[in-house]
């Protein structure tokens, strides 16, 4: 559109920086928190992690197209909740989004807490010389619960602080975290297997009080625990089987999408797409570099064996504490290549920015969806109230924090085997994404006028709208993930849990958790709908389109 014919009016802003958009998307597919954490748990697969990373990124690019397209057609709408309710109607949109963006985030709390201790506290306390405290934080039960509470405290602080301040913290964290990762990669690419082995023995003994022969003992414990995942290779089928675990790490480039502002043209679509796509590509390349660096110096087999030894204990398959009594954080293993304690402290501090710059948004989407539901009168007005003095959404925060404390308790103490439902945190969001993908597929047909007057109206593949094509591919990918998760055709030979992913229909905990969250969402929706009807408000009507003629 010629600028000649655009007047000065409120909200007519210029385009945002693609690099900034890239940073937020990059942080959402967080290599160090989500990546290192999930790679280490994937020690028992047959497909190579490098090809799996590449294959998953190819599919997730279609997710990027879907979300960039939806934002271009329906800007300012605030995401999945509004898109789904606009295209499907109230009930489906509410139930999928409330579960995906609110209830499921309760489960993410102890997972974030676990990452806090493994990535930040344990290695930092260790290199600072606080051995006992470091090892305590790595332990089961109370340590994890305490870290979940610390996470909730940090997230609450961010909500009180507001996004204006936290967005800046995120940007500085990006630079600090990248510097840390760069040093880790340099160490991995300049070290040697012998130097690593010696450094590992020496530093582990000094920091965590491990016994001599740690390397061999760890390798043996890992082999016994079933470490098998290769770096490369594996049949296509085996590579695909790794994807339902791998997406725990990289299904989230859309979290960094810019939802605000007046979308003025196809350029804004391309900016959103480019920011997210480059983040996905960049993180994938960094992930590959990290894998190659690990294989070069730490040794791929040893890396997987150390992971297997740790998780076999952490998941409760053995009570025998592994020879290395803490999570084998790869950044920590890399800094063991030097004996300089100051360098170790600096690198681990820099690497902790990956957590602090990322974890603060744990409840950001939850707050948005809780508010949107309250404004639609599907929750009490009080949940969207802001504290008069601080502007903090205290009640909405409590609705997230209190259940999260309860879920953290179940998870930390593994009550009823609750720790096995880790992947359900990804599963429920993927179900919501599936709803959004279907909405994207039908958008050009169900909202024809809206689509045809949008900035993406001319983007077609063989005459079919690009958003539909991308939606079909992304939905098919999600359908594959959902089938694998639910039916887990690769359950143990006896057909008993945990299988490959731990959340199949055979896992009662997982089924109960999922049904409970969807049941709760449905109860809230239909309960409030009935209540509003008695108050004279027909919620179907307030969502219905007013006739134009």
């Amino acid at each position, binding site marked *: 559109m010629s600028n000649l*014919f655009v007047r000065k009016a*409120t909200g007519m*802003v210029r385009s*945002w920086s693609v690099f*900034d958009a890239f940073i937020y998307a990059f942080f959402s597919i967080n290599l160090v928190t989500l990546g290192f954490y999930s790679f280490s748990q994937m020690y028992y697969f047959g497909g190579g992690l490098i090809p799996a990373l590449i294959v998953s990124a190819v599919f997730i690019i279609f997710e990027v197209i879907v979300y960039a397209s939806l934002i271009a057609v329906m800007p300012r709408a605030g995401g999945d909740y509004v898109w789904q309710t606009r295209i499907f109607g109230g009930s489906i949109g509410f139930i999928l989004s409330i579960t995906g963006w609110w209830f499921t985030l309760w489960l993410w709390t102890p997972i974030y807490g676990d990452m806090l201790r493994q990535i930040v506290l344990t290695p930092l306390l260790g290199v600072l010389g606080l051995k006992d405290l470091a090892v305590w934080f790595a332990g089961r039960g109370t340590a994890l619960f305490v870290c979940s509470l610390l996470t909730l405290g940090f997230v609450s602080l961010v909500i009180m602080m507001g996004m204006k301040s936290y967005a800046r913290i995120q940007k500085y964290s990006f630079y600090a975290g990248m510097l840390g990762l760069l040093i880790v990669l340099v160490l991995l690419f300049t070290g040697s297997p012998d130097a690593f082995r010696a450094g590992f023995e020496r530093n582990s003994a000094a920091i965590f009080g491990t016994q001599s022969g740690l390397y061999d003992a760890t390798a043996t414990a890992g082999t016994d625990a079933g470490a098998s995942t290769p770096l490369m290779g594996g049949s296509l089928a085996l590579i695909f089987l790794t994807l339902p675990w791998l997406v725990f790490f990289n299904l989230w480039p859309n979290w960094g999408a810019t939802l605000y502002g007046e979308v003025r*043209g196809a350029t804004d679509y391309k900016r959103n797409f480019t920011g997210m796509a480059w983040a996905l590509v960049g993180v994938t390349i960094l992930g590959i570099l990290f894998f190659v660096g690990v294989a070069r110096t730490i040794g791929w087999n040893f890396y997987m064996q150390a992971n297997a030894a740790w998780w076999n204990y952490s998941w409760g398959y053995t009570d025998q504490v592994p020879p290395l009594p803490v999570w084998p954080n790869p950044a920590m293993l890399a800094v063991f290549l030097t004996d300089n304690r100051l360098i170790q402290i600096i690198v681990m501090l820099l690497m902790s920015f990956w957590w602090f710059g990322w974890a603060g948004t744990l409840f950001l989407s939850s707050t948005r969806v809780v*508010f949107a539901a309250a404004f639609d009168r599907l929750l009490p007005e009080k949940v969207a109230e802001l504290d008069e003095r601080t502007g903090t959404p205290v009640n909405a925060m409590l609705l997230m924090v209190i259940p999260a404390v309860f879920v953290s308790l179940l998870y930390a103490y593994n009550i009823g085997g609750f720790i096995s439902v880790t992947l359900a945190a990804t599963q429920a969001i993927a179900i919501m994404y599936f709803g959004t993908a279907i909405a994207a597929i039908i958008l050009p047909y169900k909202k024809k*006028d809206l689509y045809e007057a949008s900035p993406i109206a001319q983007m077609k593949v063989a005459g079919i709208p690009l958003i539909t094509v991308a939606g079909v591919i992304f939905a098919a990918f999600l359908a594959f993930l959902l089938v694998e998760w639910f039916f887990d055709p690769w359950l143990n030979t006896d057909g008993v849990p945990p299988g490959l992913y731990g959340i199949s229909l055979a896992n009662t905990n997982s089924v109960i958790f999922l049904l409970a969250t969807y049941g709760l969402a449905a109860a809230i929706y239909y309960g409030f709908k009935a209540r509003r009807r008695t108050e004279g408000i027909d919620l179907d009507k307030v969502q219905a389109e007013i006739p134009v003629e």
Partner: protein
Amino acid sequence: MTKLFFATDIHGSDICWSKFLNAGKFYGADVLILGGDMTGKAVVPLIHQGGNNYRVTLLEQVFEVSGDDEVQDIVKKIRSRGYYPYVTNPDELLDLQNKPELVHEIFLAQVLKVVEQWMDLADKKLNGTGMKVYCCPGNDDMEEVDAVVRSSRHVIHAEGQVIPLDDHHEMIASGWSNRTPWNTHREEDEEQLAVRYETMISKLKDPHNAVFNVHVPPYKSGLDEAPELDKDLRPVLAGQSLQPVGSTALREAIRKNQPLLGLHGHIHEGRGATRIGKTLCINPGSMYEQGTLLGTIVKLGRNTIENYVLTTG
């Protein structure tokens, strides 16, 4: 008691105006109130290419259209987003590049033409219905718009007025905002806004049962969160950084007088409802580009809001 429907910031969208006029019947409301910013933000040239052929660039997509049907279709698309189509030729387009005053004239003519059409449509649709319709131009609306609204037989121009909604409730209205980075048509400093509000409030019989229909939302109400901009009007940190941009004078007026209801707009992303003391403040937001009329239905009781809901029509 009165059941009102409020929508705002429809920015030239024909679809939203038609829906607004139909909303009274659709939702069973007694009163329709349109907040400010009725006018569109862009004129889209249909550049004549000879014969019956035109080139149109809409949302950075180039359309080559031929024949009346295709022209009508593209005009409909342009209008559906609230923009104004303008038939021109390459020579005129070139000439206009150095004559911003002529561009302004074209803009104003298009804006006034559409507002006139809207008032005609309102007079036609509302005739005999008894529906009360109030309209208060906002900071993005040129001053010339007021005269056109005032000429309507059924739409009441509400700026600066104290309007009785029923036996117990009065409404004050203003489309003026605090300063914006765009230096728009109706904006002033907070001190001047405070005087503007006080002038109206002082005429209210019962401020506690009043409706404050003020385009700008109160400061730090959550209804005024907008992306932070740099000096070049570029969202900083990719739009992740939000900041409150509402009026401090309005917040103080609400805090001090505690009216029953505040109706606001201005910040399209600020859809929501909140309380400042006992006052319920609502910004229904705007999705005018999508032809969706966001609004709110509020049932006013004596000394209380009996009920309210935000609508997506």
